[in-house]
């Protein structure tokens, strides 16, 4: 074959991303194995490897088990099921296919959603011997929710029902009946047998009553919507390229429309208008670029644009800049979704802290019923209202998938716990829930971009608590964090000037400080408390007044000998000479903390280094 003709053919092939969904016994892996096998996209060494594995794990007796070509993980081969999303590649004369192979069981709904998020076409497998099941409805609902416009219902195992036309037609009728409310652009029904290959690639005489196309012909003919001529241009800025001083460009992938040199566009957040000077595409400098291309643009003037901004057409757009919207969310984690809890929301080029303020209802994905609920569990889908800490640019998912989707990340374990599609913007004025909400701790602290907590310093007099605490407060202040430092000596001049140094007074001293620090945490502040606080029980009381992750006990470990040597205020000298009673470490006890969050060793490191250790801790635990 002539190589140029080959490339021309390759370049004319369209790319189609398809999702296959079906449950364990529907023959989904067999169908994909069949597609790869019949399209001759399997090499003979892979086939002979599969033959070896068929003998070990196969379900087809002596025959080669095509499903084993697909199930890639050891556990899957052993259990004969598909656990995760796998991606497969094959091509025909007209088309290059990327298949997302996803499991269909309800406990793997999240995997199916993942596969569907990047697919153009959904193939829903129905077992002909069983007909329409709850899972068929679930698959159809998910495809519709994820905005897939083309679906093919493949009624499989026709060989097992003797290619019965009436049964096939009954299945179609009942599918159409429940799928009425979903607006698929294209909806086709094909009777197949993946095991024998009927109607997958070749039409088969066994099903002579079927006049339609084979599965592969149907797929090849699907035409994806091309961007409309009038579609508006949008480019979320992903990366600002100013890696050298003489060049400044804005990089990103065009998510809708097209752009030409000299076009006027706007920076969406500031509404500032700019002109396109150069367009650098992967193929070099060009006069224009279109949706899907990863480009770098240079502009006619220097404006303030950073990652997270959107460049778009000046007119006729329907983008939003808002901090609240309504969305469908699928929950993907074992730990349930709890309204009002803070999560990270990641959009195409931006992430921020936010929360689900309301779970309006959850959806029974088998019957489509709306159910009232307080939580979403793993694999459940809910209709929700979301409030973010910062304004975000978005577009409803149905208009622009890239600008209308987000994932939810747990702040503490970094897991991807959920995903959502934006339905519409909620304006503050029209969002009732916002007004009903009382301002609470989370809201106060979210303004500051910090999580309130108590840094509780404990240690002997002269151990260095106040010095380190002071440096920490300065550092936090520089980082723009809101803090307050409660120092033992200072508080005793005012709030606690009626208290002495007896054990009873010491306890009352700490009780008051604990209450004050609780109020300050509630006010959203990072509260630094620097007291000797010698008793375990009072430190525990202070700890229990705030949430468990808000109390950080810091033991400043300096030996009594060292403190006495330093004696900055001359107190040890006084105590030794008997002029000062009830002095901690001399004639009053100090109880060493058994499990403080942080221990600072003052003998080894400087106060500055120790302060940095605490700052690092706060960063690691996402307090700041």
């Amino acid at each position, binding site marked *: 074959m002539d190589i140029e003709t080959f490339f021309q053919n390759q370049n004319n092939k369209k790319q189609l991303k398809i999702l296959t969904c079906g449950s364990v016994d529907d023959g989904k892996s067999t169908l994909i194995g069949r597609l790869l096998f019949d399209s001759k996209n399997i090499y003979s*060494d892979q086939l002979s490897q599969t033959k070896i594995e068929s003998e*070990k794990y196969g379900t087809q007796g002596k025959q080669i088990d095509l499903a084993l070509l697909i199930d*890639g*993980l*050891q556990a899957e081969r052993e259990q004969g099921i598909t656990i995760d*999303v796998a991606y497969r590649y094959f091509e025909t004369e007209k088309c290059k296919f990327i298949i997302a192979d996803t499991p269909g069981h309800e406990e793997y709904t999240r995997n199916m959603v993942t596969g569907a998020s990047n697919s153009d076409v959904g193939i829903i497998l129905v077992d002909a011997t069983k007909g329409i099941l709850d899972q068929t409805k679930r698959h159809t609902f998910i495809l519709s929710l994820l905005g897939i416009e083309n679906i093919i219902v493949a009624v499989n195992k026709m060989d097992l029902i003797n290619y019965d036309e009436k049964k096939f037609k009954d299945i179609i009728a009942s599918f159409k009946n429940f799928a009425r409310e979903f607006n698929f652009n294209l909806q086709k029904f094909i009777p197949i047998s993946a095991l024998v290959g009927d109607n997958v690639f070749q039409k088969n005489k066994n099903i002579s009553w079927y006049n339609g196309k084979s599965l592969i012909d149907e797929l090849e003919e699907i035409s994806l919507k091309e961007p409309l001529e009038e579609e508006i241009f949008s480019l979320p800025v992903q990366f600002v390229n100013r890696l050298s001083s003489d*060049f400044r460009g804005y990089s990103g992938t065009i998510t809708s429309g097209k752009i030409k040199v000299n076009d006027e566009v706007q920076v969406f957040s500031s509404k500032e208008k700019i002109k396109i000077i150069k367009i650098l595409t992967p193929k070099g400098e060009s006069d224009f670029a279109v949706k899907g291309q990863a480009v770098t643009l240079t502009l006619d003037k220097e404006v303030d644009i950073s990652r997270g901004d959107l460049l778009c057409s000046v007119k006729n757009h329907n983008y939003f800049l808002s901090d609240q919207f309504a969305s469908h969310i699928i929950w993907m984690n074992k730990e349930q979704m709890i309204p009002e809890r803070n999560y990270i929301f990641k959009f195409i080029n931006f992430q921020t802290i936010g929360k689900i303020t309301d779970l309006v209802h959850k959806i029974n994905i088998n019957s489509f019923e709306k159910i009232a609920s307080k939580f979403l569990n793993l694999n459940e889908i809910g209709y929700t209202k979301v409030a973010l800490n910062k304004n975000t640019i978005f577009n409803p998912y149905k208009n622009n998938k890239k600008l209308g989707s*987000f994932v939810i990340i747990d702040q503490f374990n*970094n897991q991807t716990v959920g995903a959502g599609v934006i339905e519409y913007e909620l304006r503050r004025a029209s969002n009732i829930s916002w007004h009903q909400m009382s301002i609470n701790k989370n809201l106060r602290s979210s303004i500051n971009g910090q999580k309130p907590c108590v840094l509780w310093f404990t240690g002997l007099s002269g151990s260095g608590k106040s010095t380190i605490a002071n440096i920490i407060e300065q550092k936090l202040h520089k980082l723009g964090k809101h803090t307050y430092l409660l120092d033992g000596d200072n508080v005793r001049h005012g709030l606690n000037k009626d208290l002495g140094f007896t054990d009873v007074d010491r306890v009352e001293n700490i009780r008051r400080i604990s209450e004050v620090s609780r109020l300050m945490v509630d006010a959203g502040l990072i509260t630094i408390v620097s007291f000797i606080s010698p008793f375990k029980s009072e430190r525990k009381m202070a700890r229990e007044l705030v949430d468990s992750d808000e109390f950080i006990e810091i033991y400043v470990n300096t030996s009594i000998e060292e403190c006495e040597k330093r004696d900055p205020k001359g107190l040890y000298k006084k105590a030794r000479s008997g002029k000062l009673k009830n002095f901690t470490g001399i004639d009053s006890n100090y109880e060493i903390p058994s499990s403080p969050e942080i221990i600072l060793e003052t003998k080894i490191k400087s106060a500055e280094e120790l302060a940095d250790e605490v700052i690092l801790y706060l960063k690691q635990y996402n307090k700041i």
Partner: protein
Amino acid sequence: MKLSHIDKLESESIHIIREVASEFVNPVMLYSIGKDSSVMLHLAQKAFYPNKIPFKFMHIDTTWKFKEMINFRDEISKKYNLDLLVHINQEGVRNNINPISSGSKIHTDVMKTQSLIQALDKYKFDAAFGGARRDEEKSRAKERIFSFRDKKHRWDPKNQKPELWNLFNTKIDQGESVRVFPLSNWTEIDIWQYIYQENIPLVPLYFSKIRPIIRRNDMMIMVDDDRLKIKENEKIEQKKVRFRTLGCYPLTAAVESDATTVEEIIIELLESKYSERQGRLIDNDQIGSMEKKKQEGYF
């Protein structure tokens, strides 16, 4: 204008590379000298054009690579002014770990997997690009594009983070890292077509030439230096051969071929009945062996 399949893959990969540059503090691109690495390097150049690539490259040298690979690496690094690190597991060298007497499993583990982990720890990289493709091997087919590694660089296939749309979870704690695979959705033929269209330079070993080989375990092994001891029943033959993938020379089988250009390779590939990883001895140790190696930290 309609984007072709290759155009779409190209933009997708560039998007991934830029995302890493935006979201990570200290990324590195693993450079294995092979064709996939060459494509990845080419895409990285496009991603940041006209400026220089804003991260380092790293080659994990097992000391058993073909000589031509090392020469090519140094030429490319100089030509494109790459910030290239070369890491060798010196402890492995001291213990005389090698693919011949230690066996492929131990050699790969010590000189590739352990060596890579050493280097990642040494330089504290938080993201490492790799050129792996999902069509290469079944367990790769299930791996995420942004694939999380714990503090010990382990992959947990059953606990992967869901990856939707092109939204990548880049959040990690200190000491953890991600492996990023910008070529995930490319197939072997896509890679070759792209190399042809973009005229990407390759190690000459991919092209057929008369080379000295011996036959061992039903494979043709090239005699690249005198560390490969010829056994009594073996003899060196001069054969016109090339390599479909490149690795340590005693572990990489040659194929007989007349293909001396990229066009001829593509034609040969289209007619071939064998997949490219067949030339890799390390994959076939046992069923599921790639999955095991990846869990231990292999790319």
